[in-house]
């Protein structure tokens, strides 16, 4: 079942065409990873899917209804977004931050109720932050901070969680910790995951479906074995790579050299 879909969307930033006539659908309960080189439009696509950017043409449907027709609050009860490099005010505790996840459910004249407290508590437990609940967010390590932000999105009780490069700035152990947490939330709570990833091995290991973007268009879409191929790595990233299956069935890829002829085709910055 399709939960979120983009239908022939075009997104422009200023005059610059970033997403060009792209269609994609996200299956409920699955993990979809979006990969591609810098400037291919990954983050922009995610922003469009989260309604942070409005497509100039085409529509985005959530549960078969145009996403533009949702009220801001109602959308926040269905879709949660984890942005890159979010910054918390200096005196915010982890619990304070997670409590903001209940904001879309609260009327302005009401403060939090018992249900909110329970949901916040559960989010803290699920992300392993219950012991750190009273610590200031900014005093935590990078991985813990990222978990705190994820806990906030969990308190939104979303159907879909959109994440923009959730492992950036983290060391390898914390990267795996975050990826495991995301996979866990998908498996145990059935939250549909859409994330932008840089690391192809993460994408291969954790995704049900991978979408490859090239200059604002969908290059290919499928399961990891279909997508992570030497041909794709050559065409999209301009590298020669070894790809093999590990003993435990994981798909591994290692880029070994740049194919110089390909590197001239792509310029431009990410998140422009």
């Amino acid at each position, binding site marked *: 079942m399709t939960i979120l879909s983009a239908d022939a969307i075009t997104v422009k930033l200023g005059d610059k065409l970033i997403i060009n006539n792209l269609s994609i659908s996200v299956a409920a309960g699955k993990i979809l990873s979006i990969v591609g080189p810098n400037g291919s439009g990954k983050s922009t696509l995610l922003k469009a899917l989260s*309604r942070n950017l409005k497509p100039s043409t085409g529509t985005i449907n959530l549960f078969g209804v145009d996403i533009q027709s949702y009220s801001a609050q109602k959308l926040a009860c269905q879709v*949660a*977004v984890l942005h890159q490099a*979010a910054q918390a005010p200096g005196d915010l505790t982890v619990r304070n931050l997670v409590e903001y996840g209940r904001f879309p459910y609260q009327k302005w004249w009401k403060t939090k109720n018992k249900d909110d407290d329970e949901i916040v508590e559960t989010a803290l437990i699920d992300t392993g932050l219950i012991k750190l*609940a009273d610590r200031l967010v900014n005093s935590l390590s990078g991985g813990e901070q990222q978990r705190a932000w994820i806990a906030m999105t969990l308190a939104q009780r979303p159907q879909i969680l959109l994440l923009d490069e959730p492992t950036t700035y983290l060391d390898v152990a914390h990267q795996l910790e975050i990826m495991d947490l995301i996979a866990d939330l998908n498996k145990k709570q059935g939250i549909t995951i859409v994330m932008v990833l840089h690391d192809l091995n993460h994408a291969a290991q954790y995704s049900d479906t991978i979408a490859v973007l090239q200059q604002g268009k969908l290059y290919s879409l499928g399961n990891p074995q279909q997508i992570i191929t030497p041909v794709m790595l050559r065409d999209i990233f301009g590298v020669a790579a070894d790809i093999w299956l590990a003993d435990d069935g994981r798909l591994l890829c290692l880029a070994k050299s740049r194919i110089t002829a390909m590197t001239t085709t792509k310029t431009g910055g990410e998140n422009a």
Partner: protein
Amino acid sequence: MTNNKFTATNSSYEIKRIVWRSGVLIAFAFIALFSIGISLVIGAVNISLPDIIQAIILKGTSIKGQIIWNIRLPRTFVGALVGLNLALSGAILQAVMKNPLADPHIIGISSGAGLAGIIVLVLFPTLDYMLTPVAFIGALGAAALIYFLAWKGGIRPIRIILAGVAVSAFLGSGISALLVLYSDRVHGALMWMVGGLTARSWSHVYIIFPYTICGSILAFWGAKHLNVLSLGDEVARGLGLRVEATRIMMTAIAALLAASSVSVVGLLGFVGLIVPHAARLLLGSDYRFLLPASALLGISVVTLSDTLTRILFSPIELPVGIIMAFIGAPFFLYLLRRES
């Protein structure tokens, strides 16, 4: 997972913090009352507290009573309300503009109100009852202009300040020109340019009071939204906050509070800069506490500063704006250095 795990949701840390914040608020309330008391007692003629109470009850029949009822009481109230308005205005602007240096005076919102107000006073003196509404429109116009000039795919703190300084200088030159050209029509122009409380009467209290009430209610209503906004625009949007609408609404409230102040005391600066920062140092960034704390501290700062203006070079009175600038400008520089 059992349900009894959920009973102790407010940890001792959280409770301590709430107790501390409430304690600070209560202390601020006492300081505000104390400042109002001081402002009533001290002046060219010192009047004892019992005399003041008597004067208030009898509505000023004796000489001292006259001084209290007709001069000192309205002056103190205007000072308190102006302090409250400007402090709230500054606190709100710092949140919506994501800028610790935002203050209605520095970024030109007060100049917008001032220019519009002066135009009414000198060109259409018969429409003086329209002073505050027109000043509000001027303040809104200045705010819109600042956003327009500073907006470039988002708000950058430094651009807001630069645009604000430019707008402030531009509108300020208009004010100066009108004051010089029509110097015969504007009494106490200099006093008005720096912000002063001299000879404020009950009519001034009546002008500002409704705006203080409305502005405060709206500001406190928006506190939770300002908190969400402080997580950043994208996160706030993700949480279902209508970011643009909130920003416009809260800027309008800040403009209303600033404009009503300008209407009664002129261009009084720096209150909206100093007060929210002082409150933030003690209370942190939660606007549900920060806004009432700023309001109370704003009352204290302006009434105490005004008392100081009356006794420093007595019998000559300085405009309170001079004292505020004297404290405020170094504070502004300190914040500027700390930011970069």
